[in-house]
């Protein structure tokens, strides 16, 4: 009984006090609210602080290197011998070049495929299949980079080393034959349209036969050349570019799919109403409208390949020189990320050692490039949204 009565009175008292705040109470509440707000703001700016700190500390440790050795050697000399006792050399040109080469190769492979796959997902495939494909993409994106590196090193490398030429020739045929068929069909149609109506059919067949013959000859010649190729080292730029391309695919696909869906139905329906085929609608209407979003997708995908460490460290061969000739992607290379990962453990990790600071200089290069790319990507994404917003109005 007693307990009940006390709780009853407490409830009553609380109700009396809570309904109307005294001036002091409201002041305290206001101050507490402000304080809480301030605290929240500080915690919320953790990402801002993190970015600023990352820049500050990478720059702090990179500056001593440039002060010690200047800029020109780092960016113009291809000789990287940082551990040499009497005359260390810090020319990162070859490493920068290799990094760019690997990133570009990966981009050349991943950007078109990724964008086409996104188009396919957003416009071509039925909903049920899309529901299956999306988790596949997510899982592909989730696989840790070290697993990709392991795959490149343990499975792809021996494959390239032992059957390199045949693998390349097989890939050429697999890609070349469908392309050849389409090219033959379309070109023969275009070329034969110049003939008179009566002779058109015959002309078309002749043109097609000639075209197909030329292309088959080309394929046979190239395939023969490729299959006689001996790849000396399985750990090379092509190997890692392929794997990096695969790793970047999910990013490209998901960002460009977002951009393509943002285009909206009206444009597509307008184009179909004018009699365009699906491919024409997609290529001439939807993709230009989603252009900046697709750019952003490409940039983000390239950044994924650009910043990757483990795959290139494990499977690129780690040889710091420019391939000869420069476009030979079958030679081992070494990237900035791999150099940092591989050499930071060996250096004297103390403030003031040139080698330690040179690695931070590399990190600074990585950081600046990724920062700029990110900025560009964000700008493109915003532009798409703005444009689409205007279109919707």
């Amino acid at each position, binding site marked *: 009984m007693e307990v009940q009565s006390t709780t009853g009175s407490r409830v009553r008292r609380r109700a009396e006090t809570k309904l109307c705040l005294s001036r002091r109470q409201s002041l305290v509440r206001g101050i507490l*609210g402000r304080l809480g707000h301030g605290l*929240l703001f500080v*915690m*919320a700016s*953790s*990402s801002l602080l993190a*970015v600023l*700190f*990352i820049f500050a*500390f*990478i720059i702090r*440790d990179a500056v001593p290197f440039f002060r010690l050795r200047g800029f020109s050697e780092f960016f113009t000399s291809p000789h990287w011998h940082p551990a040499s006792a009497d005359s260390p050399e810090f020319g990162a040109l070859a490493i920068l070049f290799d990094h760019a080469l690997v990133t570009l190769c990966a981009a050349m492979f991943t950007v078109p*495929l*990724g964008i*086409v*796959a996104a188009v*396919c*997902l957003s416009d071509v495939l039925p909903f049920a299949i899309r529901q299956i*494909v999306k988790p596949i993409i*997510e899982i*592909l994106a*989730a*696989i*840790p*980079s*070290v*697993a*990709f590196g*392991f*795959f490149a090193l*343990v499975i792809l490398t021996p494959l390239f080393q032992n059957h390199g030429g045949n693998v390349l020739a097989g890939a050429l045929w697999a890609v070349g034959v*469908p392309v050849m068929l*389409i090219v033959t*069909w*379309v070109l023969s*149609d275009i070329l034969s349209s110049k003939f008179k109506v009566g002779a058109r059919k015959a002309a078309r067949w002749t043109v097609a036969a000639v075209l197909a013959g030329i292309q088959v000859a080309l394929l046979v010649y190239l395939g023969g050349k490729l299959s006689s190729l*001996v790849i000396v080292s399985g750990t090379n730029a092509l190997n890692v570019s392929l794997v990096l391309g*695969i790793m970047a*695919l999910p990013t490209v696909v998901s960002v460009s799919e977002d951009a393509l869906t943002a285009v909206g139905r009206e444009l597509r329906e307008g184009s179909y109403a004018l009699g365009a*085929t*699906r*491919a*024409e609608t*997609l290529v001439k209407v939807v993709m230009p409208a989603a252009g900046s979003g697709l750019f952003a997708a490409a940039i*983000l995908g390239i950044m994924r390949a650009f*910043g*990757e460490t483990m795959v290139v460290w494990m499977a690129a061969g780690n040889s710091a020189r420019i391939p000869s000739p420069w476009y030979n992607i079958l030679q081992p290379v070494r990237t900035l*990320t791999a150099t*940092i*990962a591989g050499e*930071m453990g060996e250096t004297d*990790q103390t*403030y003031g050692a040139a080698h330690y600071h040179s690695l*931070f200089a590399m*990190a600074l290069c*990585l950081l600046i490039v*990724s*920062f700029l790319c*990110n900025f560009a990507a*964000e700008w493109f994404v915003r532009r798409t949204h703005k444009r689409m917003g205007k279109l919707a109005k």
Partner: protein
Amino acid sequence: MDMSSRKILDRGFTSLGIFSVVLMAVTLAVLLTPIIIRGAGAFVFRETVENRRFTFDVFGRGDEAALEVEVADAAKARQPVYDMVAEFRAEVGQMSGRRKRDMQGQLRTVENLLRELLGPFPGEPRPVMPRSRYGKPRWDRAEVALGRLLTVEDYDYSDPTQLGKKVLTPRVEKFRGTKLEELFDYLPAHAEAMLRPEWTLNWRFLTDEPVDANIFGGIWPALLGTIYLTVGAMLFAVPMGVVTAIYLVEYAGSSRIVSLLRTFVSTLAGVPSIVFGLFGLAFFLNTLFDLHLFNQVLGISRSKTVLAGSLTLALLVLPTIIRAAEEAIRAVPHSYKEAALSLGATRWRTVVTVILPASLPGILTGIIISMGRAAGETAPIIFTAAVALGKVPSLTELHQQPTPALPWNIYNLCSENQAIEEIRHVQYGMVLVLVGLVLLLNVAAILLRARISRKLRG
């Protein structure tokens, strides 16, 4: 262009799209199939008597009586081998000159290969390294060792314009007419009797300590280290990320602050992971933990620690958590918030009692995905937390000790270990465990999200 060409171009374009979608699926299959199949080999394999002996000696598991019988049987089967070798040794002793020297060399090779296959000869002193104390623990490795015993691998350099060609000749050719000739018939015929392989399911691969460069034992330290690092990263990243998201959605007044903060979040998401590693080294280890307060008063070590690794990983996954939490909070219907406010709740109370519970599944999805990300990242922990060998620190010394971790040990075992070929199964097993862990987390997230969207729809 006539209609048929346009149609063909259309089909071509479509098929290109389908090709790239299929390519992704195939890539996933090509990537996962060998990892799953060969990774399973770390768990399910034909275990030889040598592994059972090792397990009993080192981990104290197994039936002693049965093992003794088995070892005795195996020894009986091996005895003729040792007899043949002894006879041949006596034969070599009677030879002379160059033939003697030559045969002595050949005999030594055979003896060493036999030691690799079966362990030390009876009566020999007990070697220090476990790998020379026992024979081959796995039947697949034993078959390889047997193959090396039976055939000689040589390279033919007679054509100077070509790379050396591999030539395989049976080793027995070198011993024709000697007492050792029989050995090469006896070995393949009695290999199973000598090693007694049996299929086993070795789930202890997950929970055993590695012994002697991972040739024996399991991967427990790496697995536990990964769990520590991941959970540690979440402890730091989740509060920061969720609070940031709450601020962005509920508190930030002007849209300029929101877009500024969001720009920084996406910048953070774009920083290469190796740069996070360098930052962890330069900031946490070389600067923050170098301070008197952290180093002397709190006793945090200045070299690699689990703590530093967790902090670095936390920064790495912060953007993922912020974005997921922001999306989840935004998805909470406006009416919930209005109802709470109209009941007189303060803004903070509304957030804690109404908005957070309603958006919890979405936030959890983001947390699970970023756990997968943190578990799989290698580059940030190279300089801040990971070591290849060693024990996992106890819970009270996480701020003082480094730890092995799955991703780093995978790298290490497949590129810097002394016995890379010998422990392929461990490498595959580790990759399988890591990929399995990450995929499990992701599948959980996908299922959770599917449930949320069903709930929202229905």
